[in-house]
């Protein structure tokens, strides 16, 4: 009888242990699979967003260029009519520089935002891995969402900046400097405003998301 009870007790202990071990194993495999799926999904989303941003910015740039084409041609014509050859060369150079700067810096800002999006993707992925290890990442998810919104706001602002053009209104040869300085100051204000405003906010938001991740225990395991 004792023998039977011992066997029964062993069976009752071993079977649930085996079932539990199998369940844990399956759960771990499931979580690993989930992380891989999440990574693939994130990669796909980031890639699509990047491509869409590049395409959108180029479209907006083309539209903006087409809109001011006549005005730019008119200003160039006025510059060509200047008597002073030296001033003419300077005016043409500044006109070209101002518009090149806007194009160059909006491209740069757009690339930076894509970079920040990539980094935020890594934060999300790490948070997912940490969650799979049983940690609470609610604060990270909130910070990631906030960063996404800030990046989106910065993207819109860059798009608005792409639409702008800086064309001097030339009235007379002696007011050339003032005419170009007005446009220079405007561009300066806009680009600095964008960089020190929403661009820095976007970087800070990603930094905050990372910070919220760093404080989670065993985050890098």
């Amino acid at each position, binding site marked *: 009888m004792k023998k039977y009870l011992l066997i029964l007790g062993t069976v009752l202990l071993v079977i649930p242990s085996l079932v539990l071990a199998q369940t844990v194993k399956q759960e771990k495999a499931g979580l690993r699979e989930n992380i891989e799926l999440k990574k693939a999904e994130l990669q796909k989303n*980031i890639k699509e967003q*990047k491509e869409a941003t590049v395409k959108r910015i180029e479209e907006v740039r083309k539209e903006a260029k087409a809109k001011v084409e006549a005005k730019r041609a008119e200003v160039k014509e006025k510059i060509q009519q200047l008597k002073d050859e030296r001033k003419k060369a300077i005016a043409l150079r500044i006109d070209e520089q101002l518009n090149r700067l806007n194009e160059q810096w909006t491209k740069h800002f757009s690339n930076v935002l894509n970079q920040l999006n990539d*980094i935020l993707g*890594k934060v999300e992925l790490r948070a997912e891995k940490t969650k799979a290890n049983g940690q609470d990442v609610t604060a990270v998810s909130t910070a990631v969402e906030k960063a996404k919104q800030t990046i989106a706001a910065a993207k819109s602002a860059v798009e608005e900046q792409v639409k702008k053009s800086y064309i001097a209104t030339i009235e007379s040869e002696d007011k050339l*400097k003032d005419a170009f300085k007005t446009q*220079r100051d405007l561009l*300066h204000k806009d680009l600095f405003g964008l960089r020190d405003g929403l661009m820095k906010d976007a*970087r800070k938001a*990603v930094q905050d998301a990372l910070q919220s991740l760093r404080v989670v225990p065993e*985050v890098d395991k």
Partner: protein
Amino acid sequence: MNTQNGKIIIWLVVLALIIAAGFIWYRYYFAQSEPLSGEDTTSAIENDLGAVDLGDLDSDFQSVDKDLNSF
């Protein structure tokens, strides 16, 4: 015969170099363009974030200012 062999060897070397260059370019390009590539530990992410450069606008405006002042 020797000259022909030499030519073949040269062509093979050139071909190998082109393939190697293509392979390096492919690896480099895709490593760059693939999101979430590289490490995702918090220190690696911190390094990535540290490398984000918002840019030095001042230096770009210096040449415009120089031209403006020479009017």
